[in-house]
């Protein structure tokens, strides 16, 4: 986890989650047309920053932390 994900990508993810509520990483990547690995990384960082949190019950999703 050396290089940081771009703030631009993270913002796009946050915007997307705002509109979607919850989503799986792979759907975020598809929707944004970004490489999945980059999205995984960016979401990881958003998690460490406390911006998003993980949902689990029927599978795994991320959502913005309320």
């Amino acid at each position, binding site marked *: 986890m050396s290089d940081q994900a771009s703030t631009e990508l993270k913002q796009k993810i946050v915007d997307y989650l705002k509109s979607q509520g919850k989503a799986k*990483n792979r759907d975020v990547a598809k929707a944004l047309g970004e490489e*999945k690995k980059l999205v995984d990384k960016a*979401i*990881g960082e958003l998690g*460490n920053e406390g911006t998003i949190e*993980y949902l689990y019950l*029927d599978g*795994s999703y*991320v959502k913005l932390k309320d």
Partner: protein
Amino acid sequence: MASDTPLLDELEKGPWPSFVKEIKRSAGKSPKAKDLLGVVEQSYKDKITHWKHGGIVGVTGYGGGVIGRYTDIPEKFPNAEQMHTIRVNHPSGWFYTTKALRTVCDIWEKHGSGLTNMHGSTGDIILLGTDTDQLQPAFNTLTENGFDLGGSGSALRTPSGCVGPARCEWACIDSPHLIYDLTQTFQDELHRPRWPYKFKIKASACPNDCVAAIARADFTIIGTWRDSIRIDQAAVKEYASKGLDIENLIVARCPGQALEYDAKAQKLSVKPQDCLRCMHCISKMTKAIRPGKETGATILIGGKAPILRGAFLSWVLVPFIKVEPPYTEIKELLEKIWDWWDEHGRNRERIAETIGRLGLKDFLKAVDLKPIPQMVYHPRSNPFVFF
């Protein structure tokens, strides 16, 4: 005075060590443990669980490692209202110094109920019972002391392996090191759920499979060898003279019919091409027979419990692979598997189920492996073939 827990008290009797006694020991110091006892007694009365579905609780940055839990009778047992579990990743092979263990105990004395499972059945240290507000502090202190969380949710789960070369003469691979290395390499996959469902890795250093990897791991690594078992004829003679019925108990039980015994000469020989590396003769005549020298592992895919499409035992994927640090080939294989599964897997579908649904053929292509007869018990019998 009558006991509050007459039913559980019954379980303090008898020779096997009692978990009730353990809960009571903690109950002396921890109100949470005390109320846990009450909740469980209530279950024993009502014959029903008194735990509700967990809400979403956790520590910052991670999507797992904590199981949220609430009782449905908080009015009766307020201290058990929150009873979250923290899964702590064990050191490979479940070896500990007492210092490390005592540190974990101290942390749990401070931040939780003082109750644990040593260990959970995936292999984690289970710290059983704490409140939401204790999670982050407990986690912080754990990491300060060199411990990290294990997996939960739709993520990689805590890998585990048998004791292997640390204490076993049959180890064909260094299971503790392999598990440690994989765990470290895939920290991100372990802590941040993003897949269709859970994914488990287990490694046993020989086909005896002392961590039940083939039944419980999506990705199963089992030590084996390519050359012949090695037989020490002097030691064979010794077994024979001590009365071991080599003919009936060893030769006749060999599933490959690979062994021959000359009772007169007390000489045991093997047809290496017929040996299935089952371990039977080795296990029973460990002083005389050992695995070959050209060691490595068989990799199998898909083991899991019954939900939803039925249980699966892992299936042969790579019959033989060298297993040496930095384990690049294995790691690359894992990445390819995850990519394919993440792309094609449905929600709550384990890798075996995705393979079952889409066919082994497509899967093999995606992970760059060629079909070989070792992957199947037998070829198809039906004529419904795609070309």
